[in-house]
């Protein structure tokens, strides 16, 4: 058997493949993205980026109904978008196995919240498995397909950033394929009108009880006996830290987050002096145990907020007296180091749009993507960001409440939204604004990829996950077809055209759309060599610093008159976009020579 280092995400993909998955759909989102990217490389699998998570789950549900094993993957907040489909598929059940991966993000490494998606399993009454490492990620994904078919239910597998992005050794196996299960038309099961749904609800309750019974003896829930003074119940990534911090204790390791095994927990609790739950985020297991009437500790010791680490678990245990304290205060990081927050890349076309919007002094309701970074200095352009697709609706509400017009001249609210986000959930909001004739300006940043999550294809690019021929959808044409009466499509680097379009859109009485073709430097290249500061002409005025291009640095040379450092352009980082040239008021920046492209 081959053993190899795999990330949790790679292992989930491998497990799905070995389990014979044939259809997989997802919308990218950290930390889940690599699952579909890996699965897409395996033979015998159709894999797609859908326009959003709900669509991805519907695609997987359809495939499972049709009799092929199917998978949908998403980040935790993606399951909010897909939750409608999770709930109906719980009622309908499946035909072939259906597995839904949710990758949660405790610590919010790249998310807007740290919701605990174990709650969805309970809410939607479906089983959930929770791996702690890559081997389990593979094994549990395979098991999830079997459980799905055995109990006629979608099965959730919950990963977290630390499971998805950590690598550990996995034993690889062969792929098993299954003949397509026969689809039999069965409206009582697959058509969720009230009369049928009423019939399904008792089936779901009864299914959950059978699953609970299964969980009592499932191998994924195991007791590791140690010293019986302290009994730890743990799961997922938290188990890894707890196991190292309490090497002597007894453990109940729960691989199945829902439903929880009552008898097993009672047996374990009865055999230990003190019962403690170590779980990240919500007191999900703890509250359930307490509801059984069993004395238990958990969130009075370990934090409810943030990601666990060895240090977090150890320090909390020491504070609670579960471990002797080593007395040493933790070492502090050095102060006053230069910070390195994420910034838009050198040459990113989003910068053009925010630079001009700032000048127009409008209220900016932004959205989620690389352009979210316009909130940090030096641009600091953004008023609000919530979740994907919120920009257009929030701008509409603000406009109705009259806020957009309060900064100086009467101006409309501006919603700024990326191309991927527009197709994800912007379109219904734009439809509402058009339908109700709400006067907002929508700027769509069309960089023809889903940048933030690693440059995936989307409907604006037409590139598909497995390289099959796709079709690019023209956003301006969509807006026109939806009845928007002012639509302009411009190149972001053409500041005159962009500014003219923005001003016209703002002055237009109804909803207006400006589609800006922003270059993402990972997909398109500028055609000039690096730009250069003309040292004699630069007086260190800092204007070019204010566009926030990471290639522009402070020079060691100080301007004698102003006493300020001059600017310096790092040729290793400059991509030759010319934004700095356009802002410099002293003509102190020299364009690079045109690049001769050789074929």
């Amino acid at each position, binding site marked *: 058997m081959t053993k190899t*280092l795999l990330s949790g995400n790679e292992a989930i993909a491998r497990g799905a493949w070995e389990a014979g998955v044939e259809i997989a759909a997802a919308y990218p989102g*950290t930390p889940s993205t690599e699952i579909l990217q890996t699965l897409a490389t395996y033979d015998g699998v159709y894999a797609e980026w859908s326009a959003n998570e709900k669509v991805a789950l519907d695609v997987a549900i359809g495939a499972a109904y049709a009799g092929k094993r199917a998978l949908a993957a998403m980040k935790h907040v993606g399951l909010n978008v897909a939750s409608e489909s999770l709930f109906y598929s719980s009622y309908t059940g499946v035909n072939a196995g259906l597995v839904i991966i949710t990758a949660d993000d405790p610590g919010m*490494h*790249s998310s807007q919240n740290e919701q605990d998606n174990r709650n969805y399993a309970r809410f939607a009454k479906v089983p959930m498995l929770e791996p702690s*490492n890559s081997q389990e990620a593979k094994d549990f994904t395979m098991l999830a397909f079997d459980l799905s078919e055995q109990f006629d239910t979608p099965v959730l597998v919950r990963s977290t950033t*630390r499971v998805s*992005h*950590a*690598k*550990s*050794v996995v034993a690889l196996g062969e792929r098993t394929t299954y003949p397509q299960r026969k689809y039999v038309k069965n409206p009582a099961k697959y058509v969720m009108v009230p009369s049928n749904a009423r019939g399904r609800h008792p089936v779901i309750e009864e299914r959950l009880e059978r699953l609970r019974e299964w969980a009592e003896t499932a191998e994924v829930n195991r007791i590791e006996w140690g010293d019986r003074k302290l009994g730890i119940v743990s799961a997922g990534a938290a*188990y*890894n*830290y707890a*196991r*190292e911090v309490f*090497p002597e204790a007894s453990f109940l390791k729960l691989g199945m987050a829902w439903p929880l095994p009552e008898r097993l927990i009672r047996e374990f609790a009865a055999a230990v002096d003190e019962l403690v739950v170590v779980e990240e985020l919500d007191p999900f297991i703890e509250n359930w145990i307490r509801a059984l009437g069993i004395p238990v500790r958990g969130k009075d010791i370990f934090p409810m907020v943030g990601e666990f*680490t*060895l*240090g977090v678990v*150890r320090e909390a245990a020491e504070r609670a007296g579960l471990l002797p304290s080593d007395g*040493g205060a*933790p*070492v*502090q*990081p*050095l102060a*006053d*180091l*230069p*910070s*390195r*927050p*994420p*910034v838009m*890349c*050198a040459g*990113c076309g989003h910068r053009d749009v925010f630079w001009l919007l700032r000048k127009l002094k409008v209220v900016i309701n932004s959205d989620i993507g*690389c352009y979210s*970074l316009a909130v940090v*200095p*030096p641009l600091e352009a953004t008023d609000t960001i919530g979740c994907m697709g919120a920009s257009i609706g929030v701008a509409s509400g603000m406009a109705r409440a009259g806020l957009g017009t309060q900064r100086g001249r009467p101006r409309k609210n501006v919603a700024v939204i990326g191309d991927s986000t527009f197709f994800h959930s912007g379109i219904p909001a734009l439809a509402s604004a058009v339908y109700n004739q709400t006067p907002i300006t929508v700027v769509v940043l069309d960089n023809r990829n889903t*940048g*933030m*999550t*690693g*440059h995936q294809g989307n409907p604006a690019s037409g590139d598909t996950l497995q390289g099959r021929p796709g079709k690019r959808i023209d956003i301006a044409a969509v807006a026109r077809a939806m009845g928007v009466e002012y639509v302009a499509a411009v190149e972001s680097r053409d500041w005159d055209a962009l500014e003219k379009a923005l001003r016209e859109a703002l002055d237009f009485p109804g909803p207006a759309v400006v589609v800006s073709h922003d270059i993402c*430097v*990972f997909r398109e290249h500028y055609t000039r060599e690096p730009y250069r500061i003309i040292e004699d002409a630069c007086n260190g005025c*800092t204007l070019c*610093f*204010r566009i*926030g*291009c*990471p*290639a*522009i*640095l*402070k020079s060691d040379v100080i301007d004698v008159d102003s006493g300020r450092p001059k600017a310096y352009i790092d040729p290793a*980082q400059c991509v030759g976009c010319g934004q700095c040239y356009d802002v410099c008021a002293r003509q102190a920046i020299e364009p690079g020579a045109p690049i001769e492209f050789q074929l």
Partner: protein
Amino acid sequence: MNITNFLVTGVGGQGTLLAADIIAEVGLAQGLEAKKSEVHGMAQRGGVVVSHVRWGERVYSPLVSVGAVDYLIGQEIVEGMRFLHYLKPGGLLLLSSETLPPPSLTLSKIKYPAPEEALEAARKVTDRVVFIAAPKLAEELGNRRVANTILLGALSAQMPEVDPKFWLDVIVRRVPQKAVEVNREAFELGRKMGQEIAP
């Protein structure tokens, strides 16, 4: 539990994840369990990248703890300093002379630290510091990208208990075919630099 902890820190584009992958695989090659975990910025260029690697008979946590790192490999001066508190007293700091000033400095009063400041701060935690002009040496070898291999060579010299063959095997497997020779040279050069102080 006897676990060896490594932390590799750098800036996006420096090859931090590959260097950490190689360290993890050298652990596996010795028949140990190895885990690796990374914290990196988003899709944009130039963010902080930190990779945790652990070797041992049995490893549960994929993350190392503050104050517990045996080998801190800083691929850039500021990113080496940013994670100094992870080093255990007496642990080894391998610091590259690479300087990549972040853009946040343009509108701030903070200055990019000189290498001497980094070394002084490091010596408060440990006297085992190897400072290597990796980018310059790599350029002299004709390939800037082998700076990491030089650091790995130096690391290997500080771990005499590990047969250097394990390192070379993994490096040869993980670098592009046409760069194998220059990586071998870089590794040997790094080994020499790493002998500067006693392991």
